[in-house]
């Protein structure tokens, strides 16, 4: 609208400050999301005994499958890291490429999780079977929903980078999305070691 009227220096300064505000605010947001996961983890641990005579983790979990999911997610974190490096170099094509790879790995992860869930539901171990399974589906599903939102955000970033290039606001969004993506990786490591490993061992 009145873009031309804004003095460039003033606006650049405001944008720079705003980017720092947003980075700090995003760290705090991640901490609040961490509280949500912490409470879901605590609920899960409390409810592992609540199987109500139904299947337990040992009956249901398949570590090979989970290992596959873990690999997809860990590698996707690495590829997002490559995208961040490329963004710092200002290489728009490389950023786009690495983001597409990251999104594809994320989609693979979500598909694997969907297969696991549908398999469990098919054998009568759905979230309404027992308190334990409610907690399992909700904790792991909340993480999966976060990954799905992350994929959606990657698609939005692809569009923005393609249309506008790596302007400071766009690059700053990419940085925050990176924080989010790596955060989900850390949460997944928690899920792997608190849900799947003890469930099987």
């Amino acid at each position, binding site marked *: *609208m*009145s*873009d031309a*009227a*804004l*003095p460039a220096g*003033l*606006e650049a300064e*405001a*944008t720079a400050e705003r980017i*720092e*505000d*947003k980075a*700090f*605010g995003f760290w*705090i*947001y991640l*901490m*609040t*999301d961490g*509280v*949500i996961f912490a*409470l*879901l983890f605590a*609920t899960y641990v*409390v*409810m592992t*005994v*609540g*199987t*109500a005579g*139904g299947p337990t983790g040992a009956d249901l979990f398949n570590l090979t499958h989970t290992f596959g999911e873990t690999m997809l997610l860990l590698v996707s974190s690495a590829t997002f890291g490559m995208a961040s490096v490329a963004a710092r170099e200002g290489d728009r094509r490389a950023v786009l490429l690495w983001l597409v790879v990251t999104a594809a790995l994320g989609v693979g992860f979500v598909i694997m999780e969907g297969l696991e869930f549908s398999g469990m539901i098919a054998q009568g171990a759905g*979230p*309404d*079977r*027992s*308190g*334990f399974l*409610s*907690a399992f*589906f*909700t904790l792991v599903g909340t993480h999966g929903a976060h990954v799905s939102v992350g994929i*959606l955000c990657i698609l*939005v970033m692809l569009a*923005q980078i393609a249309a*506008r290039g790596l*302007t400071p*606001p*766009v690059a700053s*969004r990419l940085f925050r999305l990176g924080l989010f993506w790596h955060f989900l990786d850390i949460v997944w490591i928690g899920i792997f070691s608190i849900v799947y490993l003890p469930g099987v061992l």
Partner: protein
Amino acid sequence: MFGRLTIEALPLYSAIAMGGALIVVFGTLAVMAAITWMRAWGYLWREWFTSVDHKRIGAMYVILALIMLVRGFIDAIMMRTQQAIAVNSDGYLPPDHFDQIFSSHGTIMIFFMAMPFLTGLINLVMPQQIGARDVAFPYINAMSLWLTASGAALVMVSLVIGKFSTAGWTAYPPYSGIDYSPYVGVDYWVWAVLLSGIGSTLSGINFLVTIIRKRAPGMKLMFMPLFTWTTLCTSVLMAFAFPAVTVVGVLLELDRVAGMHFFTSGDGGNMMNFANLLWIWGHPEVYILILPAFGIYSHTVSTFSGRKLFGYTSLVWATCAIAILSFTVWLHHFFTMGSSANVNSAFGIATMIIAVPTGVKVYDWLFTLYRGRIRFTVPMLYTIAFIVTFVIGGVTGVLLAFPPADYLMHNSTFLVAHFHNMLIPGALFGYFAGLNYWFPKMFGFRLDERWGKRSFWCWVVGFYLAFMPLYMLGFMGMPRRMEHYDVAAWQPYLVVAFLGAVLILVGLTFTIVQIVVSVRRRAELRDPTGDPWNGRTLEWATASPPAPYNFAVIPTVTGRDAFWTMKADGTAWRRPARYEDILIPRNSAFGPLIGAIAFVLGFAAVWHMWWLVALSAVLAAIVVIIRSSNDDTDRLLPAAEVERIETAWLAEVAAAPRPVDEPARGVPSAALPGAAT
């Protein structure tokens, strides 16, 4: 298409419920007709609803809070009336309706009266106190407001379409589960709480970033005004406690809708986990409500004593200690649930420890008053009433902190008396003090003192009449939430409590009269200088109401009570060498749009219209994506325009009758409103 929404949802089951529904419907229609008649829709939309200015958002929060205060109070007086007459009889309210009323009273007063009230005051004042031009994220701020409003709207709609929860404001399972509460009431509760809870989490993050990142040059943390400190601590609590209520609401809804077993009594559910999760939010929430009020009292006590605050450092550390301890006491809300004696003792001791920093604060306020030149203005009256009354509530709290005593008192009216004794003098009187104190900053004129004092006396005396009998009834063994009872000895106390409620009704009416009278006398009550009380902190350095940018030149701070120093140095109200261009965020329909979508989403979820839930979720995602892809959000206020606004204001200051350099002359109070005569 309409899920489980049928014509049965209209409140045809009771004349009283129908009456309530009609009041809501016709009240809404009357307001809309009045706005249409005044042709004010365009003005309201452009200047208010789409505004991202923290002062306007703050004012809208406060207006929402006052509306919901009236609704929550109507619930309260209906309960008091019922209990005053329902000895060995059914009274006038059927049990199902009575249960809805105590549930909505608690929900409204916590989530839709107190939360918007304090968030509004913080929005209005905190950025000005730290010398900032706005909060860090103005658009998220607007979104928080409209999410809160959408939650409030859901509660109001439940009066007309369907029923509200009968499970109390804490919605404990298994009663709130689908087996015992199959209808929509609990779903209304969950969705109202979820929507406003997301708004509060975002507000917490927003204020936290604002205080850490947006302070004026020179304002160290230990130079910050006390209200900013309490806001900082409250924001930390909002950001980290509210996710817990989000989790507990979602899990309860998954039980109800998806047949899960988080809190069911069979199939591996765990009801105690609900109490834990709820109070992990719920106890910090108590301090979210009360810490901002502590901040307000710290300002009123010092301004109206004409002294600097006694024990600033200890007040800051007491606030921080309370904020941290508030996360360590949640189990005292359910001592009787059967944790071991060791667990109960640990939480009992932690609870008693909180009384220590709180006591420190009370002494700091008392020592500030000591040898002060006290002006008995409305905010000061509330402050003094608070100090006296709050100590009584604090003492009963320490009593309840003993698990053995709690076993006797829990679920009785003693508990009801205790927490009202904390939250009415502790929080609500503080908000009233803040409203009277900062109202000129909102609208440019003071509130009428005479009606304010009348209202104050009704509130305070009414409070004592309404709640002291409940302490005694608690000792006599009366449980809370009784629709009728057969112990005749209780009735006299309940009649006194009812009279107290009537007196509070008069007080509330006088509050409304006070606002109306003040609006009519606004020319007389005009605050030309922006500093109507001889204030000490930076919010008084701006005009009343402030320009959109607050400060034409960001002040440099060298100590506490920055504005007092400026007045003493003679640097207040000084024209700078030159004015500069200022960028301010442009208005946006984003906030109201997200609020409207959230309301539709919540309403659709309550009535199981899943297609509409999906549609509004997609719409919300699209709106957020569009909004967050926009890099062009500022408009420029040219230096010439800034100069015009500032020159006009400074001329008004110069023409104002009061001396502008009181601290230097040492005659701070004589010519001011409320000065002793």
